[in-house]
């Protein structure tokens, strides 16, 4: 293959995160919107990397929709997950979430 395949997918033009489609290893060179970024850590398929510099409080956009907010800053190419992001969803009394913390778990959907 002449051109390396990007391991990242942009799901919607408004998104500020990219989804990993092929496992990334620490040290891999990534092209993010033309910027060359070195992966800081291993990241597996399905996880998210920042497409832009994000600050605490910024909405995270995936599928063109807000899926939560940053709780800490991240650089372009940084991993976006539980350690720096949280749900904006107001948990109702029936959900197994208290103050943003998971207190129980189950699978859902089919």
């Amino acid at each position, binding site marked *: 293959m002449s051109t390396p395949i990007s391991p990242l997918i942009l799901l919607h033009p408004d998104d500020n995160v990219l989804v990993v*489609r092929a496992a990334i290893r620490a040290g891999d060179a990534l092209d993010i919107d033309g910027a060359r970024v070195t992966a800081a850590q291993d990241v*597996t398929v*399905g996880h998210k990397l920042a497409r832009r510099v994000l600050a605490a409080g910024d909405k995270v956009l995936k599928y063109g929709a807000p*899926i*939560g907010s940053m709780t800490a800053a991240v650089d372009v190419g940084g991993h976006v997950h539980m350690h720096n992001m949280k*749900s904006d969803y107001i948990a109702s009394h029936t*959900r197994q*979430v208290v103050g943003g913390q998971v207190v129980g778990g*189950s699978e859902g*959907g089919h």
Partner: protein
Amino acid sequence: MAEMRGFLRSDGRKGIRNVVVVAYLVECAHHVARRIVTLSDDMDVHLIGFPGCYPNSYAFQIMTKLCTHPNVGGVLLLSLGCESFNREALRQAVAASGRPVETLVIQQAGGTRATIEAGRAAVARLKAIAGQTPVVPMARHELVVGTICGGSDGTSGITANPAVGRCFDWLVEAGATCIFEETGELVGCERIMSDRAVTPELGAEIEACVQKAERYYTIMGFGSFAPGNAEGGLTTQEEKSMGAYSKSGSSPISGLIKPGDIPPTGGLYLMDVVPDGEPRFGFPNISDNAEIVELIASGSHVILFTTGRGSVVGSAISPVIKVCANPETYARLSEDMDVNAGRILEGKATLDEVGAEILDLVEAAAAGDRTASEALGHQEFILTYKSFEPVGPACLPTRGRAA
């Protein structure tokens, strides 16, 4: 590609198939109806039916909408004779739609063998009349397209589902009608969805229907939706539900319908599939085909079915296009699949390219091409008991614009 064409019905709607349905009105007439369909050995003679002997207004409504669906050109009703289904009201509704309809009552027709023979002759007559339906050009804005996911896996939310979303965006932009559903899998997306509603009142109705779904599934013992699979990279509840929700694309949401409601205009509609009131008859939809039947009852000409693990089903009445999310599944089940969206994961195609391929296949199906499941003979159908209240006035803000 061949041009889209439609079978013009007397209400002005156009069908992309010209199916004769044989409909049993109670399980006791199922065997006779099935034999008539099997012996006709015709890809465009389909079996549908309702097994229950007790009356149910939801089942009556769905059967009526299916028997007057644009893809249906004629109807044979199969009754045992003593069931409570109102066969005469259904016959009148079909006749009023301008379609040929015949009724056979097994208890009056001389039993199994005689009814099968009479049914085969009736199907031949119905086919002949349906065959005279005018065939006219059909435009993209006249399409009604439903979507469902089944057998999902970790790839569904990043390949097949958003690719269907692209296709939906283009269809809605062209004025077509698109329907997505399964509010039970949209828990966590209600605020995102309500922000997309064309009016705040519709937004409030959407939030309320997702809350209803969550409560219903909780009572059914499913527990509540927990924040998703973090190992798979999902961080929040809304992100997890967005995987299924991404089939809806990014158009504004024009309305909230219930099964059998026909969207009044083009645009994107959410179907509320969860019964109203206390749970009475079990799970909202016991399998994927029950959801497909509801999408068709609301007028869907064609169904976009995304699957990761590899569902093989099709449907009676409307063709099903299978969009396979996972490249490994595609390799195993390629004959059952229409689209390999897993190429996105392999870097061999973009979401836009796969979305465009899906749109091409919708139009090819509307030009008469058979989908993979149709060609393999899939005509699954299931209809069970449910109960609904009508939608409120805030649910269809575009209704005033309808002709």
